[in-house]
């Protein structure tokens, strides 16, 4: 019943009152003419009220005229009528369209730039640089793409190791990771703290500007505050300065290298097994036979069937070669491995050690576990572990 009601509402209908003497005749005529009528109510001897669909209204009116009755539409119900009503209210329609156009236009601009993850570069600098290149709040989205913004930033700031640019709605979000940069590069106009870029044991703190918060022989973890840029003045308020200074600390580097003592070497025995195949238009035909070796290497050699330079024939001859191999186990000299491992490990550490670091000690540990020799090299250094981080206001 509900479904029928909804259907009637969508199609639209009218409630009509009919006056006349031949009402039954009218109804019978409506039946034969396939006019859908419902909810008939007899008001009195010469009046009836009924619902009729919009489609059936015109033929019904014709019939009313034919039978000499009089019809009066009482109410128009349904979606088509409401749409008609809206059509008459032009300003409402214009306002509605204007609303959509207005929202569309407003959402096609960037209104907010959000930067996350910056530590050593002031956000204001980056935003200023972007706006110098035409990307600021209020610029149109179609003017730049995410990739362009990324390239722009990479070109200007060579120490950004990771940049993720996202345009979400009206917001431009930049997620930036920086490499540790030398303290001289950090813009001195902005207040900054000095924090630890790696863990270590403090040896000496020289604070040229700012207040040192760590003591000698204290263990610090990565990211811990070393020299604070917030100085408490006598009246108790804080004064923000650009902290400067050196923090020397003992840090260690570790590298671990492994090498099997018994090494497996594949060696060809010289036995050969060959097969031929054809290749037609990149689709191969191959005559499969069993390969008589358990360990082998496979070589595929393609040959042109007809060797004419200027025509590329689609038929090619293929030769499959299988060469038997033998796996031999070779026992290596432990001393040689130890030396080579040690060199490898030191090589790894040398790449990691910061410039200006003073090496204090070097430990080398060899361990044999089953078939494998592990070499661990630990290098301890004294270096400046300070890193300037801009203070967020």
């Amino acid at each position, binding site marked *: 019943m509900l479904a029928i009601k909804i259907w009637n509402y969508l199609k639209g209908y009218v409630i009509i009152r009919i006056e006349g003497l031949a009402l*039954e005749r009218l*109804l019978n005529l*409506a*039946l034969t003419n396939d006019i*859908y*009528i*419902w909810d*008939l109510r*007899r008001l009195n001897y010469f009046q009836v009220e009924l619902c009729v669909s919009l489609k059936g209204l015109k033929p019904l009116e014709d019939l009313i005229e034919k039978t000499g009755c009089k019809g009066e539409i009482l109410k128009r119900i349904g979606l088509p009528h409401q749409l008609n009503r809206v059509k008459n209210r032009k300003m409402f329609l214009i306002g509605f369209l204007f609303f959509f156009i207005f929202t569309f236009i407003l959402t096609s601009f960037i209104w907010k730039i959000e930067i996350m993850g910056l530590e050593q570069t002031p956000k204001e600098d980056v935003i200023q640089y972007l706006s110098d290149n035409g990307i600021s709040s209020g610029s149109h989205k179609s003017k730049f793409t995410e990739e362009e913004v990324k390239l722009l930033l990479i070109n200007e700031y060579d120490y950004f190791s990771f940049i993720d640019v996202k345009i979400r709605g009206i917001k431009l979000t930049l997620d930036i990771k920086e490499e540790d940069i030398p303290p001289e590069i950090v813009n001195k106009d902005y207040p900054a703290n000095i924090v630890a870029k790696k863990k270590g044991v403090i040896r000496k703190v020289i604070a040229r500007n700012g207040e040192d918060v760590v003591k000698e022989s204290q263990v610090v973890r990565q990211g811990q505050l070393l020299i604070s840029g917030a100085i408490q003045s006598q009246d108790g308020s804080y004064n923000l300065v650009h902290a400067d200074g050196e923090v020397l600390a003992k840090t260690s580097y570790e590298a671990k290298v492994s090498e099997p003592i018994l090494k497996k070497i594949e060696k060809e025995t010289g036995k050969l097994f060959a097969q031929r195949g054809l290749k037609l238009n990149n689709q191969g035909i191959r005559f499969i036979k069993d390969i008589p070796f358990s360990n082998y290497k496979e070589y595929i050699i393609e040959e042109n069937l007809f060797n004419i330079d200027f025509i590329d024939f689609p038929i090619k001859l293929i030769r499959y070669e299988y060469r038997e191999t033998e796996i031999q186990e070779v026992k290596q000299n432990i001393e040689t491995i130890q030396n080579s491992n040690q060199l490898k490990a030191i090589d790894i550490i040398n790449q990691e050690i910061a410039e200006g670091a003073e090496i204090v000690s070097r430990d080398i540990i060899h361990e044999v576990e089953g078939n494998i020799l592990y070499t661990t090299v630990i290098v301890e250094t004294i270096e400046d572990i300070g890193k300037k981080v801009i203070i967020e206001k």
Partner: protein
Amino acid sequence: MKKTNNIKTNIYEVLELPIEITMDLPKITLIGNQEAIIYNHKGIIEYSSTLIRINSRTGIIKVMGSDLEIRNILSEEISIVGIVDNIEILS
């Protein structure tokens, strides 16, 4: 005429065909005293809130009651709602 009708009825009974369709007879469904649905009618003869007369092949179906309304009317079916007191078939 009566004989042929009898033969027809017998055939339909054997074949188990619904008689109201094959012989075009009206089918009246009553739900309590609130609703009467009449299939296979042949048009309305008289309609008021207390009496509805409907033509059919067997004769005139007379539905009496109070507050009678025709809920919908199609060429095959009429459904009457209201309080039905009495249904008569005048053949």
